[in-house]
């Protein structure tokens, strides 16, 4: 087969030409926009991820040019590769939307509704998905499964109750670190993410499990309950790091850096994995070269925080005459 063969695919009626072997999800991402199926478990940077959460289900209404029969069931678009002449329906198919609604309800069966407490709230993919497809009320009548919080190392906290078992963190542990130290224990309903014998992960890239987690199951302990995401100001910055690319997003509040994360693209996937030194230890402004404010989608709650200016003008602080006048005013008020 020639190298430059391109398959013609149409997704929701939009044609696109992609290389053979591309998945439907990635073909849709080449088009972009609303027709991209949501993905909770697929992560393009992690080999072997995908196929677990079923949120990316799409309908293939025409299998290929040679065999135009539709596929009998909805398929997971992150795992199904395209065929020449394939026609895919995502948001134009009511069947897909109905199925996705069911999947979201399924994901939320055991997920606690503790978004007011959860540090991930505001940048949580399950929250977005629930907002878009979820029911207002649960139909589940039984007790949700709960776990105690586990510390994975001294910087990462695992809140297994919130986990949706997407396995992304397992792939991170598998592929970014030389020895794997955490995985899934148990099967089916009893499955849980854990470290073997509660062993601490001390690899230099282990902090990335926080970034890949689509929900708030793995969270940064140094940021725990510090502030809500939408009150912080995301700023792009970089530094010379010997072990990673050093390109990060700093989350500011006032003048202090509350949190450091990797830069995420529009699908919530990190651009470069960053090391634990950058993530947990460099929390002073002097450590970083700031590039500018991070672009946030206007639909995101984070954009409700106005941060066009990195440091708002401190008129009073700079102007000595105003300072003196202010002090005088305060003194006068004190006398009363």
């Amino acid at each position, binding site marked *: 087969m020639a190298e430059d063969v391109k398959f013609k695919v149409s997704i929701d009626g939009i044609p696109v030409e992609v290389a053979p072997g591309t998945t439907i999800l990635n073909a849709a991402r080449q088009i972009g926009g609303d027709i991209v199926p949501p993905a909770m478990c697929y992560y393009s940077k992690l080999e072997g991820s995908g196929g677990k959460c079923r949120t990316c289900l799409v309908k293939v209404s025409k299998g290929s040019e040679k065999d135009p029969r539709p596929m009998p069931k909805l398929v997971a678009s992150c795992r199904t590769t395209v065929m020449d002449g394939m026609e895919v329906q995502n948001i134009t198919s009511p069947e897909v939307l109905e199925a996705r609604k069911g999947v979201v309800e399924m994901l939320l069966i055991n997920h606690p509704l503790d978004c007011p407490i959860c540090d991930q709230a505001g940048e949580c993919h399950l929250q977005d998905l629930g907002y878009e497809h979820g029911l207002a009320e649960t139909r589940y009548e039984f007790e949700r499964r709960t776990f105690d919080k586990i510390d994975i190392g001294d910087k990462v906290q695992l809140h297994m109750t919130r986990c949706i078992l997407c396995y992304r963190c397992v792939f991170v542990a598998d592929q970014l670190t030389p020895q794997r130290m955490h995985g899934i224990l148990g099967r089916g309903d009893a499955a849980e993410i854990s470290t073997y014998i509660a062993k601490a992960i001390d690899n230099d890239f282990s902090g990335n499990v926080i970034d890949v987690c689509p929900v708030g199951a793995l969270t940064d302990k140094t940021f725990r309950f*510090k502030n809500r995401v939408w009150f912080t100001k995301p700023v792009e910055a970089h530094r010379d790091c010997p072990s990673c690319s050093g390109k990060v997003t700093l989350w500011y509040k006032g003048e202090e850096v509350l949190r450091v994360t990797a830069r995420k693209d529009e699908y919530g996937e990190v651009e470069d994995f960053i090391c634990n030194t950058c993530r947990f230890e460099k929390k002073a402004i002097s450590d970083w070269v700031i590039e500018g404010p991070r672009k946030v989608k206007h639909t995101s709650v984070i954009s409700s925080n106005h941060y066009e200016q990195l440091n708002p003008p401190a008129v009073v602080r700079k102007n000595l005459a105003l300072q003196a006048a202010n002090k005088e005013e305060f003194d006068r008020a004190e006398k009363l």
Partner: protein
Amino acid sequence: MEPLSNRKKVLEQKPMNFWERIYLPAIFKGLSITIKHFFKRIPTVRYPEVLRPYSKNFRGQHSLKRDEEGRERCTACGLCALSCPAEAITMISAEREKGEEHLYREEKYAAVYEINMLRCIFCGLCEEACPKEAIYLDGPHVTADYLRKDFIYGKDKLVEPRFDYKKEQEPTA
């Protein structure tokens, strides 16, 4: 200049007659109106002691609610501050320690919760945004004060006092 709309009325000043010049009839006329009002129903009330009936949806000072076991409901999720159009609300959250389960309902709570009553416009959006039914604007009017700093209400003024619904335990704090 010639007026454009002929609406202007020119008053003509007549000289006063005898009764107008001695003023007494006008004074008695005015006094009679004043005295008549002594015997009418007083429309005002003595406010702090006497209260008029309030509307059911009157919005006054905020109160941070407790649940049926007397624990604070607020979990410092920040949605009230997010929804506040006047940016009057700030808070600092903290994690509940072991042994504080009787004080705070959720594992996170507001260690500091401040509302600037000078900024607050009593729109009630915080009440609407609260997912924990923790804040309600069900208090009285916010009173006047002398200093600006005294209008920043902290948890000491906002959290509602403990009530003992069982009557057995003594009310604390």
